[in-house]
């Protein structure tokens, strides 16, 4: 019989214990300890080695489908939270993993997801040290949801903030935009698109460390996830109360992502990314940062896409290919495929 998740796996008894022993303990370093205790314990001196402020962030992952070209929900859950730490300038160190599983989920699927979490965590040298598993009746969640909450430490020299964008600062993105969103849309069966678009899911931790090495004074940094680059630029313009100019031509979009956008009437600026960041750096350091970024595989496609032009207002203005300007707003609802 194919092993599947049953409600018993969430009931706190033997079935749950054996699931934890079978799937989680072999996978996650440190969880062995957490299985024995209700909480992971981390000596504070280990943290103090890395800086003076703890960074703390949480995200739930509910992506559908859970496996998609270029990644899966497990990889996403680890990298997504790592990135939310990294873009604050923190060294990501520890992570929790809480799963909500649907009754009937094949354990083999869970195992694949866990394996890919392990791989992603190891690659970023992050330890998953505490966890939780809940099982809900069939139909009450879609296969599985993952929450990861991350802890990192910010070095005392670093002061990244959404409020620090200044006139003259240069806006950099580390590669083509919209890949994740387009990959998910193509992987969804209902639109029946077939594309070889890979999600850009990746850890940005190393890249950020390299950037901070050449320019500890990065002003703003954010990963461009839900809402895409448009959302991040707007958030930063709002928080810093500044006006940004972005050059449409300079924004890298890969051909098949463009294909998806043409077919559905989407704008790639609003598509989610899972391995792209927007950095706003002092003009004087821009060249150096860009060079450093390009040395790293995660930053090979880095380009300048714009500049902060005014310390007033709170607007993102795009110069179109025709030299005209248009305002880039945030998305209002979801992007829905258009016929017109």
């Amino acid at each position, binding site marked *: 019989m194919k092993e599947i998740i049953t409600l018993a796996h969430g009931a706190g008894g033997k079935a749950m214990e054996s699931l934890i022993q079978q799937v989680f303990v072999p996978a996650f370093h440190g969880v062995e300890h957490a299985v024995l205790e209700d909480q992971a314990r981390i000596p504070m001196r280990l943290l103090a080695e890395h800086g003076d402020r703890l960074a703390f962030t949480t995200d739930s992952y509910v992506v559908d489908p859970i496996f998609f070209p270029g990644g899966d929900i497990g990889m996403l859950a680890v990298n997504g939270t790592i990135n939310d730490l990294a873009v604050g300038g923190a060294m990501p160190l520890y992570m929790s993993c809480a799963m909500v599983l649907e009754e009937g989920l094949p354990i083999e699927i869970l195992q694949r997801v866990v394996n890919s979490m392990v791989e992603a965590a190891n690659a970023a040298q992050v330890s998953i040290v505490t966890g939780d598993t809940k099982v809900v009746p069939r139909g009450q969640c879609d296969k599985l949801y993952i929450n990861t909450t991350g802890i990192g430490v910010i070095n005392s020299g670093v002061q990244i903030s959404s409020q620090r964008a200044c006139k003259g600062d240069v806006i950099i993105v580390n590669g083509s935009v919209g890949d994740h969103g387009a990959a998910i849309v*193509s992987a969804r069966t209902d639109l*029946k*698109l*077939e*594309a*070889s*678009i890979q999600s850009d899911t990746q850890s940005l931790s190393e890249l950020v460390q390299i950037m901070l090495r050449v320019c500890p004074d990065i002003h703003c940094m954010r990963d461009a996830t839900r809402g895409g680059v448009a959302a991040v630029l707007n958030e930063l313009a709002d928080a810093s109360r500044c006006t940004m100019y972005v050059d449409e031509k300079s924004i890298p979009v890969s*051909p*098949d992502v*463009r*294909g*998806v956008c*043409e*077919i559905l*009437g989407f704008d790639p600026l609003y598509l989610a990314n899972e391995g792209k960041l927007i950095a706003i750096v002092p003009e004087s350091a821009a060249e150096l940062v860009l060079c450093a970024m390009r040395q790293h595989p995660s930053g090979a496609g880095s380009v300048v896409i714009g500049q902060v032009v005014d310390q007033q207002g709170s607007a993102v203005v795009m110069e179109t290919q025709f030299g005209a300007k248009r305002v880039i707003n945030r998305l209002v609802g979801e992007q829905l495929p*258009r*016929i*017109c």
Partner: protein
Amino acid sequence: MCLGVPGQIVSISDHKSHLAVVDISGVKREVNVSCVIGEREPIMELIGVWVLVHVGFAMSRLDENEARRTLALLSDLGEFQESLS
């Protein structure tokens, strides 16, 4: 109104139902080609043809010559302009 995208027919997926696969900048989608099959033309002949796709239907063939002519007209304009300046 009426989002339409040019794509190239790369294969026929269902002869009977007139379904073909169109490639749009690397993205493939099955579309109905009833409206672009010529009378007595074998459907296989459509492979390689560029069509305009709207809501899952190929609605027109793209005419390469006309496209070229339109663009040529523009570059003539451009040369004319340059000759003026």
